[in-house]
């Protein structure tokens, strides 16, 4: 056992810091620091900068154009990006579809799909959930009927994150009906400019627009857009969700959030002293800091294990369950540290007419409410417990 960074890893950390200092534009870092919604342009601008450096597809092996980083390098990169207020990398193409194509795609699909992800030219979004198929994803009803060398897709997807900026979508569709629900699902790639697709925004709890409904009416998709075998989609779906979970601990995000909470609690005064000197509030911070310290190691242990066995395992559900709760707790503390100053609607206060000025006050309540999503999406934390029950407890 050895938790220390090697000289090479220290050098890498320096390299990442230097890169972020010189290549992360101020206007992007400022936008992230504000905690508000990012525009598609800003996210895409950052993706292109990373792509030019060869650091966009950080989980990909070298043979597919990734940097071939070790788990520790990815951890360092994640922590530093959050420290410097870089936007998160939109995961749908890079962390989800990429590994799926590498594992299940044919040679033509590898050639056609992967370069567009690597260059940030294509923006993929996810067509998984439906109004009647959330946690029970296998009950999805969107259907793809074969018509010559096309599928004709009809149905509705929902919770499609950042779909408003995307040009492509990967979908789970039903291709077989007289069987167990899991056995009739296929995984297809769809261009969003295909006739018959309509994307409608869903306004979220805090007022922001981040997710969408997608309607499919007689959408004709070439059969060659099928990934893997017909009716193999459930296997692919599960594989994708396991990959989604590997970065879901959000250690870097939470480490940054912890620093922000401490900074707020030092600035805010209550009962004549800085809030951080209030024993109750300090105890709340300390407890979540301790949980996060453990999470850092749990995350590294599981990345280490995933690298040894070649793929992430079901134990990554632990990262999701605990990582999301830690992050939500930190968002709660940031909101509470501000007290009544957290209340103004995002954007309602633009200058220093409150005790604390933006960016300190901006968006902390909004982020708290928005982050309730993390224990629901990607397989709710209850679904993660079911996964662990099946695989780890063998119950």
């Amino acid at each position: 056992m050895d938790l220390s960074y090697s000289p090479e890893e220290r050098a890498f950390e320096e390299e990442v810091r230097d890169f972020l200092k010189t290549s992360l534009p101020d206007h992007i870092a400022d936008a992230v620091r504000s905690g508000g919604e990012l525009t598609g342009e800003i996210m895409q601008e950052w993706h292109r900068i990373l792509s030019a450096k060869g650091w966009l597809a950080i989980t990909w092996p070298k043979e597919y154009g990734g940097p071939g980083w070790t788990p520790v390098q990815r951890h360092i990169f994640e922590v530093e990006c959050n420290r410097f207020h870089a936007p998160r990398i939109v995961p749908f193409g890079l962390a989800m579809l990429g590994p799926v194509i590498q594992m299940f795609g044919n040679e033509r699909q590898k050639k056609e799909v992967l370069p567009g992800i690597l260059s940030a030219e294509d923006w993929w979004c996810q067509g998984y959930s439906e109004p009647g198929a959330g946690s029970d994803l296998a009950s999805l009803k969107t259907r793809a009927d074969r018509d010559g060398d096309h599928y004709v897709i009809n149905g509705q997807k929902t919770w499609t994150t950042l779909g408003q900026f995307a040009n492509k979508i990967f979908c789970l569709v039903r291709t077989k009906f007289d069987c167990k629900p899991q056995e009739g699902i296929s995984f297809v790639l769809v261009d969003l400019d295909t006739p018959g697709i309509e994307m409608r925004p869903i306004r979220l709890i805090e007022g922001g627009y981040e997710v969408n409904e997608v309607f499919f009416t007689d959408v004709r998709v070439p059969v060659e857009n099928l990934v893997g075998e017909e009716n193999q989609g459930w296997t692919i779906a599960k594989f994708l969700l396991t990959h989604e979970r590997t970065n879901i601990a959000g250690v870097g995000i939470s480490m940054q959030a912890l620093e922000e909470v401490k900074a707020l609690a030092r600035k805010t005064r209550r009962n004549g002293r800085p809030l951080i000197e209030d024993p109750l509030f300090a105890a709340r911070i300390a407890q979540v800091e301790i949980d996060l310290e453990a999470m850092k190691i749990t995350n590294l242990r599981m990345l280490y294990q995933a690298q040894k066995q070649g793929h992430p395992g079901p134990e990554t559900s632990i990262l999701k369950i605990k990582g999301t709760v830690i992050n939500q707790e930190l968002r709660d503390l940031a909101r509470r540290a501000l007290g009544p100053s957290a209340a103004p609607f995002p954007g309602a206060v633009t200058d220093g007419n409150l005790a604390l000025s933006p960016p300190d006050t901006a968006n902390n309540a909004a982020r708290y409410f928005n982050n309730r999503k993390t224990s629901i999406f990607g397989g709710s934390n209850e679904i993660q417990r079911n996964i662990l029950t099946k695989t780890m407890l063998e119950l």
Partner: protein
Amino acid sequence: MNFDLTEDRQMLADTLNRYLADQYGIEARNASAYEAPFHDPTKWAEMSELGIAGALVPEEQGGFGGTGFDITVVFEALGKGLCPEPFLGTLMAARLLGAAGADMDALVSGETRYAVGLGEIDAAYDFENIATTATASGEAHVLNGRKSAVYGGQGADVILVLAKLGDAPAIFSVAATEANIVGYGMIDGGGAAEVLLEDTPATLLLQDAGGAVQDAVNAGRLALCAEAVGAMGATYEALVDYLKTRKQFGRPIGTFQVLQHRTVDLLTEIEQARSITISAAASLEDADATLKIAMAKNLIGRAARLVAEEAIQMHGGIAMTWEYSVSHYGKRLVMLDAQLGDTDQCLSEVMQSYAA
């Protein structure tokens, strides 16, 4: 960075686990843990021969280990086997003797059994507030005061005692024959003692011992964390086994989701406990050891109590019985929190790091 045990440590863990499973099963354990002297001197000697004490002492001091990960390997195995042998005293004594540059051959061989007396009734964890005093008496010193919760104190050969020499903390070596040692068994097995010091002759081992005491406490806390990780793992295994076999309403109770999710939550907390113990072990010789280990002891305290209470609850009546192993693991998991700084004490120490 890597998370694998070295071959040597893996071998030590295997040896210890095998010994405890074969020679010191739960019935043998209960037979010695609850009856004076609250451990088994024969097994103590055998385990010392297996190299436990040596693993807790650095090479340059006559052992072959002494790092944070040596400590966690040993104590995780002791926890897994719910072993009542008083090696906590050995470890903490080794840290103090090491700081003093004293000879440790008799400690490593197990020939001399040490216990360490730091806390008192009104200074259970805050050792700077102790009342025991030392005064010079010719070449030697005499001690006055009362040390509480001296783990393994009964039957120890030597007690290392923390006392104030003037205003400064100092460590003294007291021969067991010289002190009034009142031993008692503990609810979770194993023994401790009150050590009554009335003009008790003592040999000064360390002056200005604040740093060395903190290091011994850090090592002791780390050992307790690892012991808890081992005991939590064993408890969890027993629980999962029981959920698969115990039937009610015509099916194994493990098929009920209300129990499944609670069990998975224990798994999550145990993984977190293992992680923070690794973090603490890695920090033992670092400048932030005290903080990192206090963080670990806080999380361990929370996790251990949760695992104990939930395991007992989900087992139902069987875990309330003396006969079943989980009742004994549960007691140990709850009570080890009160050793060397509990959940609240450790949280409060972490909070103090914000003041600077």
